[in-house]
């Protein structure tokens, strides 16, 4: 069973068998999405921009959690106080494994809205709680994700630095996960459109719209029946 809690923007916590992975505890409009005393075993930031890395270093230090990220992000985390022995640079397509969890990064990128150009961003495949979860972070491209199999796909939809709704829907159509979860929307109608289009055009994929502080529980009931519940 896998519990996925949403904090808003691109921040999630995955929990299974007592292991918690925190993703992108960013700071948005000056406010941290996740409290600094949040307890996690692994903290991951998919890129070094504040809305992704946020207070990840503080949380990692406070909870003595591993910090995972690409090279630039790890360097920034180190600058922010993460001890070197807790830092791990995720190399693209090289799995990182701890008991019951496998995390594989894929090289993606987000658009640098201020300076132009692109910023490296990791997409992740996280295997835990019997599920394969695809997580694109702040990605504006799909990279290898369209070729990967996964049960759950978490995609940005807000445009700007990342995917627009159409890109997220297009990826869901190609990947056909069991569940598609939108994140990082910038307008109220975006998640509704995402749900509408997924229901209409993506065969086999159910859109699940999560509001901040909601938790999605997913499990294989009786071994092979996919079930989920949003609380």
């Amino acid at each position, binding site marked *: 069973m896998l519990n996925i809690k949403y904090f808003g923007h691109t921040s999630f916590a995955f929990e299974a068998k007592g292991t918690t992975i925190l993703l992108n505890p960013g700071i948005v409009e000056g406010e941290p999405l996740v409290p600094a005393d949040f307890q996690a075993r692994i903290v991951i930031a998919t890129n070094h921009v504040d809305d992704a890395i946020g207070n990840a270093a503080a949380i990692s230090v406070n909870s003595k959690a591993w910090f995972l990220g690409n090279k630039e992000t790890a360097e920034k985390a180190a600058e922010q106080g993460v001890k070197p022995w807790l830092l791990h640079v995720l190399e693209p*397509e090289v799995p990182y494994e701890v008991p019951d969890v496998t995390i594989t990064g894929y090289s993606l990128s987000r658009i640098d809205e201020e300076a132009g150009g692109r910023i490296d961003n990791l997409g992740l495949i996280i295997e835990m709680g019997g599920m394969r979860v695809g997580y694109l972070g702040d990605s504006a*491209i799909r990279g290898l994700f369209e*070729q990967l199999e996964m049960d759950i796909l978490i995609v940005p939809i807000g445009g700007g630095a990342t995917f627009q709704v*159409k890109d997220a*829907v297009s990826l869901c159509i*190609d990947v056909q996960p069991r569940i598609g979860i939108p994140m990082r929307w910038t307008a109220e109608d975006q998640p509704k459109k995402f749900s509408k289009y997924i229901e209409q*055009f993506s065969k086999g994929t159910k859109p699940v719209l999560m509001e901040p502080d909601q938790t999605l529980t997913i499990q294989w009931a009786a071994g092979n029946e996919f079930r989920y519940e949003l609380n």
Partner: protein
Amino acid sequence: MSENTKKNVTIDLEESEKTRLGGTSELESIEVAGKLSVKNVSERSRIWNVKVHLGDSRDSTDIATESLSGGEVDVGGTWESKYGVTVEAPIVTLSEVYDTCGTVETEEPHWAYVASKDNPVKITITIKNETDGEIDSIILNKTIPPELSNIRIISSKSGTAEFDEGTRQVVWKGFVVYPHEETNLVIGATGQVHDKEPKSAGEIVLTYKGEGQQRSVLDPDLTALTEFLMGIETAETEPNQWECTLECSNESDMIVRLDKAEVYLTPEGGGEKQKMIDAAPSIELSPNQEWSASFEVASKETPKCTQEILYTPVRVITKRVLGTIEKTPQIIPVYKIDYIKEFDPPAVNSFDKTPVEVTIEVTNAGTAKLNEVFVEDNLPDDIMPPTSEHITVWIRGEEYTGEYEFVIDPEDQNPEKPHKITFRIENLRDSIGELEPGESVKINYAVMAWRNRPEKEYPSPIACTANTYPAGIPAEVASPEDGHKLGVIYKKRAISTKKAINKGADAGEYEVVLVVSNNGEVTAENIEMTDWIPSGFEYIGTDPEDDQPDVVGIADGTNMVWKWARMNPGDKKKMRVTVQGEGEYERREPQVTSI
């Protein structure tokens, strides 16, 4: 004197009913005005002390007294008295059915013009005689509105009907309607309107006469005096025996009826008078005709007699009803529709998959209520159509959850085929009420633009129709055949390849570095890159291992072929290929293809 030349005083009742009907032939008002006339038809005799007795028969009128005093009426003169009568309905029923679409049989007539089309108008006018007497002197004038052309009389059950171009009136006349029968006239025409303003269907004026009929129940009688001689002759037939004779003579040139003749004898010695003649002959005396009656009495003196005589000129009653019915023109509204069709976004990136919101709004742009709306939308290929459960419909700004039909043909979501979408909403009058002028039906659905090509056009023509209840000729509006093109924004494709040939660690070993990158603005799909290994060298391996090529032998060496399903803008692949052999490693540039 023959019957034909007999002269009788005439009591004439002429009652005029004036009826007004509404646009759909409903009774709006009726007024009946009566005129009671006493006509002295004599050529030389006055009549005086004229009284018309009405009794209880005046109940439906506004006449206040049981009898009317007419005084003296001179030779050839007339005395008149007017009155009003209360009635519920005229003696003739007029109805008009103005059917704007006479070629389509329906229980109820069509009541609105469709704009900018030929309306096959059929006008049926029916006249029914509701009385036991004949109705004659009928003249009907139907004004033909200017929107109508090709006016023709389809049928006329009675009389003759003709259309006068000058006055634009159909005049129907020359017939009688027998008791409780009806007749009708059918006019055909073609109606054309080009704006939405309601039109007049033209008024009808009907005049008629019902001879011998009346709307009141007046049953008048007359008493009057005229030139009439009367007297008693007393003649002694034997001593003290007398014969007394009452003699009457009609001195007028009219028929006079003698109603009462009484003679009283005063006894010689006094005492109560004795009635000696008591006659009620009710005899009608012709001019100069005499009437007498006598009795004998014994008396020493000349008997003293007195008389009481009642007579009156004989009257005849004539009566008729004169009627006029004015039918107010029916107001004929116009039905027409407009539509808006929008794509959001109006254009999509080439070679991408983009959800596109399609909004179609059909507005009642006329003045008639609409009962049904039909939309046929056409989606070109490279568009994935919606599913029927994902359509949303709004009416009057609110989401409509009632019944409608939504069909996608073919019934699949294959983006490689064009699709026809039909939407039909009917019987609004029984669900949420007909669509009022200015109101609209809005339909929204999403489609998925599917890897559209920039050199191709994607027209999405639409046709909308609407109709009233009952349905006639539909109002239509449509786009051109190549209308409503979904725009495709051309995004440049740029797949670049770079190649380096480096010496390997061992003798005869080379490391070929190949980099393929998508430097374009659009995702590339089905990328295939081929690089050549010269004869004398053999393929050893590729790093990374996940990017192993298909190795195919050819006449002058070996080809390595890589295939990728998709490369997004900015995506890059880098492979290090190890080859080993002898000789010079000739360079050829890698070939790459994609869509």
